[in-house]
């Protein structure tokens, strides 16, 4: 099974500050990588995904992530956060052609005014 580690369970940040949410994975084979966002009492919504090609991936709501194969990381970044970005963020991996998605434990982003 794949392993996904999100080191920070909570990240407090002030509005308009930059933020980075960290994700590391372990896999001996190639994987697809995803970031999802969950607002309170909602399901998960895709922010962005890396399948191949450019290692810098841009997603919705101004988020971007960078795939680093040597460090097996896929950190999520936003240069300036808004109050509305307060949510829980999940990193996920899917092994090529394996069709199962494995999720990290989540990071709660709390944007303060």
């Amino acid at each position, binding site marked *: 099974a794949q392993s996904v580690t999100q080191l920070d369970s909570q990240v407090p940040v002030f509005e308009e500050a930059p933020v980075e949410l960290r994700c590391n994975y372990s896999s001996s084979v190639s994987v697809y990588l*995803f970031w999802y966002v969950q607002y309170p009492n909602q399901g998960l919504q895709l922010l962005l995904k890396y*399948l191949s090609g450019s290692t810098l991936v841009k997603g919705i709501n101004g988020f971007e992530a960078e795939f680093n194969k040597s460090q097996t990381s896929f950190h999520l970044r936003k240069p300036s956060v808004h109050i509305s970005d307060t949510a829980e963020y999940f990193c*996920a991996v899917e092994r090529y052609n394996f*069709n199962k998605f494995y999720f990290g434990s989540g990071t709660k982003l709390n944007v303060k005014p």
Partner: protein
Amino acid sequence: DVKVTQSSRYLVKRTGEKVFLECVQDMDHENMFWYRQDPGLGLRLIYFSYDVKMKEKGDIPEGYSVSREKKERFSLILESASTNQTSMYLCASSLSGISKNTEAFFGQGTRLTVV
């Protein structure tokens, strides 16, 4: 737009009851999933189905079973509900195989409380 619909947003059941959680997707996806979400543990895969009547156990299948009689519908069954099954349950679906459109689409979740 892909839509994954879970039949209930909130459920309260008694210990020992048989509980059915229903999920329907409308995009002809081959794969369907049931996850359980608990604080600090993220999403843990309970069961996965890759075709009608086909299923695989996930990481935490104990106490659960599933049924997929039609491609669009995937049911999670708690044979005898227990209080440690109180949780948020999330259904998801995805395309099969290698695809540039691969991603998991999620329902809104069912918050189950077992008393």
